[in-house]
């Protein structure tokens, strides 16, 4: 079963200067038990996507079409708010970049972990045990004593692990993790990724992992979705994306990663040009103004080309491999 199926989703915001199409024909699946990475620069629509899934779009935002199907039964785009509230938390959990935003600074960790079990029919004793169990799972030392402590008494890495423990406490079907490791150093980042992988297998949930750290994506994710200016330009397995990118944007993005440059260079590669104005999207390919493979055909909307084995790229010439200047 597919945990989350997003099909042809369109989201726009009304602005003074006219409608802004933040997401255009976005389709991808988060299969059961898989970790799907979402890559894309700031402003490519990652946050809008998360908010659309959670039913938390700003007042001026609206879903203009398409579907978000959760666990094969709940259509999230039209779900009544009361049912959405039932799902948020117990079934769809989230972890954000800043764990302080998720933890209340003036309530002890234990009390917060009790509070979020308010739907459960367990006794207080059992709920506390459950909290201890979760803290141990995320490797908080001396978990029972930790319940009495306050968020500021933990380091940044520990706070993030507590936030993960709280998100997974109700054993959700889907965990949405939005840049959860950005604020951590490399050693803690790696520990957190390994922990997430481990917990995902133990709990058997699916994970949508948003990051622009390509190294983390490569290490953690099973599948990757590449977003650019509100469109999914390419998706596939982590190997398909990193080893055989078919959309020119993906290829250029991979080249730009300083981690791929083994030789020390003072001049890092970039993608020349700017993202088009989303209030006036071009009729054709969204990447055409920056693409080195552009041709006359690109003024028409490009198809989602199936390259095989679930690898799909929104490009006319996706069947031809893209030359990448640098190999991993």
């Amino acid at each position, binding site marked *: 079963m597919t945990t989350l199926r997003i099909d042809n989703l369109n989201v726009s915001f009304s602005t003074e200067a006219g409608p802004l199409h933040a997401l255009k024909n976005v389709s991808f699946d988060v299969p059961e038990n898989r970790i799907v990475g979402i890559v894309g620069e700031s402003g490519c629509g990652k946050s809008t996507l998360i908010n659309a899934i959670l039913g938390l779009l700003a007042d001026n935002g609206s879903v203009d079409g398409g579907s978000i199907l959760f666990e094969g039964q709940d259509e999230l785009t039209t779900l009544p708010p009361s049912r959405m509230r039932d799902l948020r938390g117990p079934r769809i959990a989230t972890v954000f970049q800043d764990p302080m935003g998720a933890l209340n600074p003036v309530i002890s960790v234990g009390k917060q972990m009790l509070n979020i079990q308010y739907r459960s029919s367990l006794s207080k004793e059992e709920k506390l045990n459950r909290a201890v169990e979760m803290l141990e799972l995320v490797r908080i030392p001396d978990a029972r004593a930790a319940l009495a402590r306050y968020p500021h008494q933990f380091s940044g890495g520990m706070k993030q692990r507590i936030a993960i423990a709280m998100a997974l406490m109700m054993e959700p079907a889907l965990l949405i993790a939005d840049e959860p490791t950005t604020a951590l150093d*490399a050693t803690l980042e790696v520990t957190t990724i390994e922990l997430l992988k481990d917990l995902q297998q133990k709990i058997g949930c699916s994970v949508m992992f948003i990051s622009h750290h390509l190294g983390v994506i490569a290490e953690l994710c099973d599948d990757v979705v590449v977003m650019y200016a509100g469109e999914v330009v390419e998706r596939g397995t*982590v190997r398909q994306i990193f080893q055989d990118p078919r959309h020119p944007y993906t290829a250029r993005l991979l080249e730009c990663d300083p981690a791929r440059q083994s030789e020390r260079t003072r001049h890092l590669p970039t993608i020349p040009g700017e993202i088009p104005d989303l209030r006036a999207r071009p009729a054709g390919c969204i990447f055409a103004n920056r693409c080195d493979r552009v041709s006359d055909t690109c003024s028409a909307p490009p198809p989602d080309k199936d390259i095989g084995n679930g690898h799909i790229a929104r490009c006319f010439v996706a069947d031809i491999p893209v030359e990448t200047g640098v190999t991993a």
Partner: protein
Amino acid sequence: MSSDPILKVEDVQVSFPVGGLGRKSAILGVAGVNFEVNRGETFALVGESGSGKTTLARAVNGLQEISAGTITFEDQRIDELDRKAMKPVRKRMSMMFQDPVGSLSPRMTVGDLVTEPFRIHGIEGRNLRDEAERLLTLVGLPTSFASRFPHQLSGGQARRVGVARAIALDPALIIADEPTAGLDVSVQGEVLNLLNDLRERLGLAMVIITHNLHVVHHVADRTAVMYLGRFVEAGDTEEVFSAPQHPYTAALLSANPEPDPDKTHDRITLPAEVPSLLARPAGCEFHTRCPWTQSRCSVDAPERQVIDGRAVACHFPLEPGARPPEMEEKAAS
């Protein structure tokens, strides 16, 4: 290396009071740091959030009072200067803050923002419109951007405006706090290239604060690694990266995730419990997480040793390619 330090930081400490109601104490955000930045060079400060990088940068810029040590900039002691006396110094030493959009006033146009330093410092006799155009051109933005507001800029463009403000008064040193956080890799490259370009053209020195090791490797001449408010290691970037001598540096470098799904990792794993600044470990402060720790480490704090421009605070500096005893045992069995 011939050194011509523009900035000299000696034994600097920054303490913050904590507690109250009769239980007052203080924690050291920066616990005695020494370094020099030479003219025209890029110096990187690496370390996790909370390790004291930003506090140190703010102390250098005079935004944060220090509790011990000295800071010398262009042969002038600046740590004792008051606000007024510090003002001219800030013309020579500018700061780029984290969160580029947040550090730009939403009600000012880009043109006003990039020329604000002239107004703050009361520099007259310049045509501000010309200056705005000159600065925008320098940072690679169209001059038409002068009439835009911050919310109309992308993340990368906002960063460029931040750079323009930082270079407006021809500084000799720029301190850039996480100049590329939150940017995707292509835009990150643009900003770093721009900074490097300006460094070369204008002969600037730069202090870059980041936790992205890949970035450091490419842009920094020298690198310092911070842990709990101290430098555990500092030296030539290439040397530090190829042969880290402090276990924390070695672990950081080995942990660095790389964009290759098939890469097998031979990682030095550390216990994830970072000690609290309220309860610094005795002896070497890294010993609670160090895979090489020995009995001496929990008692004796290591002195900073400087050999050939490489500073390390460790009783047992690592040989190149050293692996923790545990990993050696595993490999042998």
